[in-house]
């Protein structure tokens, strides 16, 4: 594993579009070549080296390449977008679209992230030690094929529209979630270890949601069918089991109607 360290020494005035900061783009490049990659600040294109000092060369492949970002990346967007392998560690905060359309590899953000992180995710792992804003693991605008696979783990809380159109994969939220969780979901799992505000599982067809705390405004389209004991994220607990959204169409598989499951801890 070879490590490329980017240190933000010259902060951008506007947001920086950093979609070139991926192990895939860094692999096979020397530090000087990496510093010459394009980034956009507003409508202006500049080399990465204008904002970051680059230390270390990329490995031959993305799998063998690790990127460490230091400095305040609060205004750097799209780090790790469409990455397929390798590792990125962001030592502080980062902006929007971190790990968007990610296919593989791992991103670890030690601070907070903004909205749209992990959208359209197909695989890999996105770990955020702080909080995330809206549209975490959601589908891109207009798209009905949301998160397909992979794991998103946010230690803190998230804002609204988490996991819209989720199709697969897992999202674990350590804190609370605002409104709209797994709207239109057709698969996948969302685990909220804190409380949820409301509209949890609206128009959901398939998939699972676990809420450890309370749901302030539960939807009337979910009906309680019993109590179950389940192992979730490594610990076993008892849950009230609801099915829904009963206002939505539901496919029939092997003679049985498939519903989305909502579990709240008791």
């Amino acid at each position, binding site marked *: 594993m070879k490590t490329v360290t980017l240190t933000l020494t010259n902060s951008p005035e506007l947001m920086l579009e950093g979609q070139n900061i991926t192990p895939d783009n860094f692999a096979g490049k020397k530090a000087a070549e990496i510093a010459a990659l394009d980034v956009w600040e507003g409508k202006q294109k500049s080399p990465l080296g204008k904002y970051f000092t680059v230390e270390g060369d990329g490995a031959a492949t993305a799998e063998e390449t690790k990127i460490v970002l230091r400095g305040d990346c609060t205004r750097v967007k799209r780090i790790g977008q469409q990455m397929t392998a390798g590792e990125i560690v962001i030592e502080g905060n980062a902006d929007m679209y971190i790990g968007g359309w990610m296919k593989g590899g791992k991103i670890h953000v030690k601070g907070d992230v903004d909205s749209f992180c992990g959208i359209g995710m197909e695989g890999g792992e996105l770990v955020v030690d702080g909080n995330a804003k809206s549209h975490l693991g959601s589908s891109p*605008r207009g798209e009905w094929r949301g998160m397909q696979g992979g794991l998103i783990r946010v230690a803190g809380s998230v804002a609204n529209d988490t996991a819209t159109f989720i199709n697969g994969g897992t999202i674990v939220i350590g804190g609370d979630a605002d409104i709209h969780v797994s709207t239109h979901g057709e698969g996948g799992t969302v685990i909220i270890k804190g409380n949820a505000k409301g509209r949890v599982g609206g128009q959901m067809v398939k998939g699972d949601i676990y809420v450890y705390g309370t749901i302030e405004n539960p939807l009337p389209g979910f009906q309680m069918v019993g109590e179950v004991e389940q192992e979730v994220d490594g610990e076993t607990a008892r849950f009230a089991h609801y099915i829904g959204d009963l206002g939505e169409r539901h496919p029939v598989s092997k003679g049985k109607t498939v519903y989305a499951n909502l579990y709240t801890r008791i």
Partner: protein
Amino acid sequence: MSELLIRNGFVFDPLQGIKGDRMDIGVKDGKIVEPGTLKNAKTIDAAGMTVMAGGVDIHSHVVGPKVNVGRLFRPEDKLFKSPYKSPTCSRMEMGSSVPSTFKTGYDYARMGYVFVNEAAMPPLHSPHVHEEIRDTPIIDNAAMPVFGNNWFTLEYLKNNEIENNAAYTAWLLRATRGFGIKVVNPGGSEAWGWGLNCVNIHDPVPYFDITPAEIVKGLIETNEFLGLPHSVHLHCNNLGNPGNYVDTIESLKLAEGYAPKNDFGREQVLHLTHLQFHSYGGDSWGNFESRAKDVMDYVNAHDNLTFDMGQVTLDETTTMTADGPFEHHLCSLNHLKWANVDVELETAAGVVPYIYSPKVKVCTIQWAVGLELALFSKDMMRTFITTDHPNAGPFTRYPQVITWLMSRAARDETMKTFKWLDKTIDATSIDSIDRELDLYEIAQMTRAGPAKALGISNTYGGLAPGMDADIAVYALNPENMPSDPTDIEKAFSRCAWLVKDGIVTVRDGEVIAEPAKRTVWVDVKVPENAQVQRDIYEHFLRHYSVKLDNYSLFDEHLHNPRVIEVDTTQ
């Protein structure tokens, strides 16, 4: 005084019967001339290349409100899907199945096309259609207003008042600067206003009490009464359903006994559009099968019909049609997003995304049906290549369709990707067809034939002196065709040269000039008709949301018109 000489290419011009002869084509002041008359011409060396007239697309949804709904409600159609950045064009080129106006114009030009007929214009929204025509660069456009569900038309035809319907049609063509009579699901889109459909051609329209069959026959009579350049352009009832070939053949039979009457060289009285969607057998999706042979047996035996394919290209695309009930039906099948609109007294429309997947049996059978129609055809001057863009696939896939038609190997290669290959072969005849079309037949299907059917073959679709100097040169040597079919596709995707109106527009697949584009429309002179004038006045007073004064297209919406005049008063 610009002169151009395209030297030594293999020329294919079916309108003159030229089959790949090595010839020079002369151009002077935007028109084709005898090469001998040129004095100081710039030369394009086309040696070893194929020379055809600029392409003519008879049926494509490229401008207007429903196309724009597709653009608006499919942002995901742009994301990562239009990465091509032209080194020569600075306008925004985005979108895949519903491209931006600029991308539409540029991509057609890159494929060597110069004329595109917008397949359905809602009359009330003609200003929008014409504004987008203005914004679509290079290609000349015409647009056909829809008549098959129009209250005026339904009332006149119910009372068998052909002359009044003709006067109304002439008025509407002028009001919308339209090109011809388009009919979409006759009666069915009007019935959709009641939440119903016309399930076959003898199922009467609610309230109006007229059948689709009567509408189609009445419109054919109207069209030939007026002597319009193009014939009635029909999207049959019961589109896309198993077993609909029965309704299709019944619709085709409506043209029996009618002969074309026009001064434009058109020989058909009925054009069947996207016939692929109308040639299905079976009675459910389980036993869905091709009936292309039955439909083509009928078409081959009747000279007064033309059709275009509506070939499924196995892509993710966006369906959009004035067939409102069909789009609702489609949405309930695929559960994707759906837009629908009713256009007052005139028509309806719907938009739904659709994925034609090689993993889905119905889709691969649809793919085979389209190709079978063309490969069973005995007259390529009556058989045209379309994908009903974007309904069965984007127009940018025409080169792939051409390759499938020209190469059995290319078809086999595609069939290898089918999940249900055996079932597809069982339900179709595609595997038993070895026919491979040649470049002359492709020229018939993409230029000469459509131009003739549209009644514009004195200007477009050929290379005779006096015609517009629209010339496409493809890097294909007919004496040494590439062994790899993908090279055919490449050559047709990016033409080596396109000359439009005598101006070199594309070179090596890149747009290098934007000659002035035109709007082609048909102005019909009819005798004064007081009853129709009064009917129009009354309907606008009672039923329309706009005033009559604001309805007709204002001249400032009309971009660079080319008027085709028809005089019925003589």
